[in-house]
């Protein structure tokens, strides 16, 4: 019995292979659809709405890439992944790109053989606790039971944080954010920890958000961004520049409302002209049509619009731009030039 399993596994390993073969872009074009890995559901970042349409901050990146390729932001097949399954899904070729609150780290980039194409959210790890617990700092959590999503950087940061502060805790590893929320609300753990953006998104879905507080400590750097398999640089470039196009569009004032108009005829800003394909041949350089960026921006708008609509201060999640403002506004967002 065990032997069959062994050979079965070997077969899968042997067969599930020819994947990373040809060019990912050719595969995607032939399929007519982009396969994009997202979360299993995190309000504001990626979650299916009542009609089963995926929506959110990370989802918008997938849709922009699909639109850049096909001119259609709906030509995407979303694959929900957990913290544990996401990397296998990408490495095995089940998905073409992953946009799932994933932290850019050295070993993921090198040892796991992925390429991060940039950062779409600068984040850090935080803690949430019930107000009734009377805790005001993470350093007071000595002996607490803490829920964490397994397979994440969160898990490792947590171990480091408690060890370096010489305090102890009991980890409760869980698979998905939904499970973490349920365990936390049921009191199976005293605190829940994940990326601060994720905590804000999670708290927004609580029945009584005001009964819970985010502790002031941010214990790590979590630059979250989309990633692709290492080895197909052309594909990596395409995803990277699609994201840069969204960021640059905000910088130059190109929005979903005016993009068609600006793309109709060359404007007096040459950078905008090159971005929107009214000047130069940038699209062809990444194997796409002239209006690739126009299509990408038209789906859900530029970076700023995507941020405001999904997780911004007007939404229940209510995140401020902070580090994620344009460099011109004192933030870290800075797209290299389109030239």
């Amino acid at each position: 019995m065990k032997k069959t399993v062994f050979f079965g596994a070997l077969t899968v390993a042997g067969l599930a292979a020819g994947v990373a073969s040809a060019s990912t872009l050719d595969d995607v074009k032939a399929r007519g659809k982009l396969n994009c890995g997202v979360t299993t559901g995190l309000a504001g970042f990626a979650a299916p709405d009542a009609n089963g349409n995926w929506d959110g901050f990370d989802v918008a990146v997938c849709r922009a890439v699909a639109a850049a390729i096909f001119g259609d932001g709906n030509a995407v097949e979303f694959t929900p992944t957990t913290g544990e399954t996401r990397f296998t899904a990408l490495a095995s070729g089940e998905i073409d790109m992953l946009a799932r609150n994933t932290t850019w780290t050295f070993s993921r980039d090198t040892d796991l053989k992925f390429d991060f194409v940039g950062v779409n959210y600068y984040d850090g790890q935080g803690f949430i606790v019930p107000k009734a617990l009377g805790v005001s700092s993470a350093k007071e959590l000595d002996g607490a039971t803490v829920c964490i999503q397994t397979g994440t950087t969160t898990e490792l940061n947590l171990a480091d944080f408690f060890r370096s502060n010489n305090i102890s805790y009991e980890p409760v590893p869980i698979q998905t954010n939904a499970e973490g929320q349920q365990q936390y609300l049921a009191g199976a753990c005293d605190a829940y920890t994940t990326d601060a953006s994720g905590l804000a998104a999670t708290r927004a879905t609580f029945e009584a958000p005001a009964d819970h507080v985010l502790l002031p400590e941010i214990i790590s750097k979590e630059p979250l961004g989309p990633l692709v398999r290492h080895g197909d640089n052309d594909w990596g470039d395409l995803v990277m520049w699609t994201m840069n196009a969204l960021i640059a569009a905000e910088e130059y004032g190109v929005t979903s409302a005016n993009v068609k108009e600006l793309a109709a005829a060359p404007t007096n800003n040459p950078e905008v002209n090159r971005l929107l394909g009214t000047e130069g041949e940038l699209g062809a350089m990444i194997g796409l049509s002239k209006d690739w960026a126009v299509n990408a921006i038209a789906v859900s708008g530029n970076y700023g619009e995507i941020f405001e609509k999904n997780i911004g201060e007007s939404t229940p999640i209510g995140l401020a731009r902070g580090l994620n403002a344009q460099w011109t506004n004192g933030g870290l967002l800075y797209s290299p030039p389109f030239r």
Partner: protein
Amino acid sequence: MAYSDSERDGFRLSQLIYDSRYRAITIQAVTLALVVAGIFWLIMNARNNLAALGLTPSLDFLSNPAGYDIAFYLIPYDSQMSHGRAAFVGILNTLLVASLGCVTATIVGVLVGVLRLSNNWVVSRLMAVYVEGFRNVPLVLWILLFFAVLSESTPAPRAFKPDENGVSQASMYLSDSFAFTNRGVYTPAPVWSDGSGWLVAVFILSIIGAIYYRRYARKLLFDTGRLLPMAWPALLILVVPALLAYFVLGRPVTLDYPTLGGFNFKGGLNIPNSLLALWLALTVYTGAFIAEIVRAGVLSVSNGQTEAAFALGLRPNRTMSLVVLPQAMRVIIPPLISQFLNLTKNSSLAIAVSYPDVRATLGGITLNQTGRALECMLLLGLFYLILSLAISLVMNIVNNRMKLRER
């Protein structure tokens, strides 16, 4: 005559196919070659594809620091220890729940299997309901159900804390020794101090003594027909010397009671709900299967044996334990082995309730943090294979002992 000569000593290749003496061998050889070639192709293909992805299989990661914490461990562990150590912690956790489960599932199975044959209609129907209910619902549902019951019907540790009026919502049991919380059960833990070694030695000697007493009583029964009381003298031999030694040595073993400290109980022994839920579910689920095996085994012993035992004046209990069950064992043990194997492998469902077994450490967090999927899965497969073979081996030895001895 040349013709028949050549037929006798000449061997023609076509005989490999047309001669029924050789055909079977030919078929087997060809099949073997195909299987070997197939396996070789799979291995090479996997290797080439891994190389194409830039991954070379290696076990070096096992000695790197794991970096993550484990909630429940039987040997000292912290996040600075290696992935290998974390895997070992998981292995021990798997062995713990599997052995606990095998013991209790057998007890439940034997009891239920025998009771299902009871003449009492209510008892036998109840047992039938238990068997059909438990074995026809997927195990993972039972695990989740037990976990939900354990964690939702019990208070959080915070509820044990007295509020400003000095009353707490929940209280401990047996003069503050046991606490049932939504995270686990806290019990007193033994603390072994100087001299406890002697105590253990005395206890082991008492066990040997009790075994000798049993042997002696048996021999006396077989030789002279005199029946010595069995239960209470054995119990005395077990308990009295150990009790005496305990006081003579100045109470070397004390109990450490759990007390509420900070967020959780501190001290004592903490049995997490995940372990309890998994253990309970494995017990009742596998117990239902074992009950059926026991019932089949008992029914396989011809009724004449029971009647003969009754005719000799044996009471029903003794008939069951001395005449029927020993014979039924021969039928029971082989399928029991596969139930033990099932239970052991099913313990990998621990992941459903976050019990850190080897599937969760080596095959979960380590796999994920290092990205060494193939290596981790092969190691995991190897571990379960070795464990299963070891269980089979032990049970086969037991089975050989139980065989009918022909006199």
